[in-house]
């Protein structure tokens, strides 16, 4: 009876512990996202300053994927961004990918604006039209100097 009690207690403890660990890992660590329900797609930007792997990919403001990898192409000096997009989401071949900032001081994310084309991009294909991250600093200084 006593042994049984210990076993039950340990069993419950272990299961509950793993559940709460899983909760934290999945909810916060985004472990669950990396699975088979996504497909990769790429985009090339001239400036992705501030974008980090794991950043959101949004359409109409709704999260549809995550940035998986950011590399520099050492020849063209351009940033190549690999994204994982949810299976159900079709991305047209004239969609525009832009690097945006959430709020003014928030994180960078990638916004995909829908196009008008009927052609849907396949796995690993590249979004042609991109808008790089806005350089607020540059804009402001340009604004002021041009005013002169």
């Amino acid at each position, binding site marked *: 009876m006593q042994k049984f009690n*210990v*076993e039950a*207690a*340990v069993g*419950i*403890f*272990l299961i*509950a*512990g*793993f559940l*709460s*660990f899983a*909760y*934290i*890992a999945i*909810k*916060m*660590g*985004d*472990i669950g996202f990396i699975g088979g329900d996504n497909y990769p797609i790429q985009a090339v930007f001239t400036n992705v300053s501030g974008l980090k792997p*794991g950043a959101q990919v949004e359409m109409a403001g709704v999260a549809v994927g995550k940035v998986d990898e950011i590399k520099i192409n050492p020849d063209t000096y351009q940033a190549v961004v690999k994204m994982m997009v949810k299976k159900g989401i079709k991305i047209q071949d004239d969609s525009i990918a832009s690097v945006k900032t959430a709020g003014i001081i928030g*994180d960078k994310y990638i916004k995909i604006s829908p196009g008008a084309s009927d052609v849907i991009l396949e796995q690993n294909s590249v979004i042609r039209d991109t808008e790089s991250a806005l350089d607020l600093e540059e804009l402001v200084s340009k604004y002021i100097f041009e005013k002169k």
Partner: protein
Amino acid sequence: MNFLQPFEKIGELALDKLAFAGRMGIFLAMSIKNLFLPPYKLWPVINQINFIGSKSVFVIMFTGAFTGMVLALQGYYALRQFGSEGALGSAVGLSLIRELGPVLTALMVTGRAGSAICAEIGIMRNSEQLDALECMAIDPFKFLIVPKFIGALICLPLLTSFFDFMGVYGGYVIAVKLLGVNEGAYFQGMFKSVIWDDINMGIIKSFCFAVIIIWVCAGRGYFLHFEKEGFGAEGVSRVTTKAVVMSSVAILVWDYLITSMLI
């Protein structure tokens, strides 16, 4: 010769401390060695999980909830000044997962299980039970210490998860239900700002703390007979107190070192 006496005293003290450190080092080495030696028995480990883990669950959940509540309360009034109550979830989540979860869990486990382990082994040392084990040709490390190490290594991350979980919901109750912070901002902000690296840091910390707790507490109990005042009930309780303090301090020191390495 008299002028040498102060030096002698300092030297003696230093050698004493050195020998203590050495004993503890040997203790850890022996434990690790025995960790990988057969036979592997399941039942003692289950018992230790029960003792270190199951029996600490309520304390951990309780302290976790209250820690989350305090964090939410303090954070709310701090962030409100900048109109960024929305960052509350992120602040609570990061503090819990990175710092307070592992550290406070480890401190509570030290207080509850670590002190009991130190007292248990100390009493075994005092009442010759360890000698008796040796005489039966049973290795005390294999029989006593290794299950505790394994148990702690399994339990601490889980207890830390409990703590974090309760802290998140304790903070939720205060922030969202009591102070009216936006629920979506609380949770989504938390989920977004906590990344896997943070959770990883928490896990690494709790593994380290598990080793520290068992090492310090079991080790001090095991070497009770080397302590000057280690006799009788008072001796055991005095050494237990020392072990708890030492383990708590070690936890804080390591916490800093791990943080500075992983951040």
